[in-house]
Structures are given as structure tokens and as C-alpha cells.
């Protein structure tokens, strides 16, 4: 049973690793679909909590897979999920990095680079949508989201301040 879970953690995240163009933020809906809806590893709420913890932790946001892995199968789960999510894409990055400079001016290289931008934008937009649905269960939470989006778009404030304030609002207010 436990081995099965490790195996499916590995399989899902290794596959996702190769399609997550746009990074962690682009992969959120697929993680949500797998962890909450398909595999029932965690509740919607636990997924949203994991996202929040990954956001306030230092380091790459992809670290949310470590949290999901830990939730599913403890320390081995955390290790397997992290390696699966980073391994395949790192190997690709390593191989491409060695050859890429040679094709700097090539037309196909420019087309690939330009063509992937809108795809990853759409995927990240989908992440925002899926997360908003998991996170904003009250009008107050939705207001915090809207205000933060506005502040984030118009200023360059350090996100830690926003997280601190919104955590406090969550604690004291009736979210």
C-alpha cells in the first residue's frame, strides 16, 4: 500500500515535471486535480494550506510537492515527490544547456521560445483561478485576494509584509 503510494507520487510528479512550462505556478491545477480529485490524497483545504506554507517558506515555490509528498507518505513521500518533480526537468535542462548556445540565431529556437510564452501564461492564469476557488470561501477572503492583486500589480512591496498582514487579518477577522 505504502509502496504503491510512493510509486504513484513518483509517476505523477515525474510526468508533471516535463510539462510544467512556467514552473511551479503553472503546475498547480494539475497537482490539485491529482492530489484532491483523482487520488484523494488530501482535502481541498489541506491543498490550499500547503500552497500557503510553500509560499511563506524561503526557496522555490515548487517545494509544495515536498509538502504534498510528506502528507501522503511521510519523509519517504517528501523525498520521492521532490526528486520526481525536479529530476526529469533538471536532466532536460542539463542536456539543453549544453547545446542551446549553438542555435542562438536559429529560427526554430526563436519560434519555440516565443510559442511557449502564451501557453505558460494560460497555465499560470488557470492556477490563479483554481487556487482562488479553493481559498476564497468567504467574501472577506475574496476581498483580501482582490486587494493583494491590486497592490501586487501596482507596487513592488515585499510579499512578506502582505503575508504577515493577511495572516493577522485571518486570525482576527471572520474569514
Amino acid at each position: 500500500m505504502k509502496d504503491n503510494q510512493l510509486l504513484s507520487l513518483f509517476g505523477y510528479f515525474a510526468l508533471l515535471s516535463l510539462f510544467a512550462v512556467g514552473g511551479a505556478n503553472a503546475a498547480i491545477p494539475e497537482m490539485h486535480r491529482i492530489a484532491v480529485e483523482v487520488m484523494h490524497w488530501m482535502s481541498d483545504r489541506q491543498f490550499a494550506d500547503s500552497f500557503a506554507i510553500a509560499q511563506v517558506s524561503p526557496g522555490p515555490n515548487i517545494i509544495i510537492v515536498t509538502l504534498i509528498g510528506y502528507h501522503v507518505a511521510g519523509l519517504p513521500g517528501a523525498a520521492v515527490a521532490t526528486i520526481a518533480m525536479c529530476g526529469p526537468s533538471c536532466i532536460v535542462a542539463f542536456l539543453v544547456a549544453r547545446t542551446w548556445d549553438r542555435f542562438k540565431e536559429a529560427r526554430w529556437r526563436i519560434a519555440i521560445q516565443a510559442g511557449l510564452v502564451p501557453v505558460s501564461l494560460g497555465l499560470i492564469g488557470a492556477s490563479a483561478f483554481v487556487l482562488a476557488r479553493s481559498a476564497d470561501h468567504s467574501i472577506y477572503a475574496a476581498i483580501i485576494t482582490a486587494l493583494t492583486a491590486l497592490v501586487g500589480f501596482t507596487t513592488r512591496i515585499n510579499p512578506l509584509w502582505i503575508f504577515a498582514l493577511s495572516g493577522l487579518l485571518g486570525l482576527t477577522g471572520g474569514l
Partner: protein
Amino acid sequence: MTAAAPSSSPTVIRPTLYELFRAFAVVSVSGFGGALPWARRKIVEQNRWMTAEEFNEAFALSQFLPGPNVVNFSVVFGSRFGGVAGAAVALAGLMGPPLIIVTILAMLYARFGDLEMLGRILIGITAAAVGLLIAVVAKMAAPLFRARWDWAPLIAIAAFVGVAIVQWPLPLVFVVLAPISIACAWMTR
């Protein structure tokens, strides 16, 4: 932090493996809300391991490769200076400290996640984090949608609808849309 001296000296210094590890470890723990500005400061401005231009190119490459951008960047950058060993060392520096921290947080959450107080704090933080993500999307979308109403916004919308509304698996959406998008980019050049 004054604006960094423009890379007037073209002399680029080669880091040792230990220096690589240390630089990425520092970047990883200081990189709240995106490690890019920290990585740039450390690599281009403080250490002069790359010129600003080389940095931009390596980062552009990392961004459109699959997988987490900063993680890709550590591999691309590390491999340039030390092959497999360099890539491994940079990656270990980037992932090591955050992994230790987040594992501790995961244990705490497993133990105290049911506490109502913690739950309320996390609800507030999640709501804000989603807001910041929306801001990122808006910033990315602005130039794309403003330029010209051509194929690019349509592809972005199709990817959004496929994943968020219809809820198709991401690999499926990608396999269908990426070739179309790349073909469009090819033809409009």
C-alpha cells in the same frame, strides 16, 4: 543597493564548486517571492560570474524549459562552470536549505494543522498569495494582450479554459496547444 556598475569589465570570474554551492544556498533562503532578483544580484553584481546579458539569456532559457525556473537556472548555470558536478552542486545549494525548512514545517502542520487558530492564519495567507499570483498573471498578460490581437492571446485563453474550466490534464492541453503555438510563432516571424 545602488544600481550596479554596468558590466564594464568583461573579465568574468570562474567560481569554485564550493562558491557555487554557497551562492545558491544564500539565494534560496533569501528568495521570498521569487529568487530571480537575488540570483541576479549575487551572480552578476556581486561576483561577476556572468555579464548581465549572459544572465538574461541563461534565465530566458530556464524559463521556457519545463520545470521550476530557478531550479532550471541553477542547473544551466552550474553546468556551464562545472559540468555535471557544477550542476549538482548548484542544485544542492538551491534545494538543500529550503527542503530542511519545509520538512520541519510539514511536520508541524501534520501535528498542529487541525488547530483552528493556525487554520485561520493560513486562510488569510492563502487569500493573499492567490492575489499575488493574479498580479503576476496580469503583469505577464499586459504586453501580450496589448501588442496586437493575434494568436498569442487566443492560445493563452485556450490553455486557461482547458485547464481551469474544462479541467483536462495538463499534459494533454500542453501536447495539443504547444505545437500550434510554436507553429504560429514560426509563421509570424
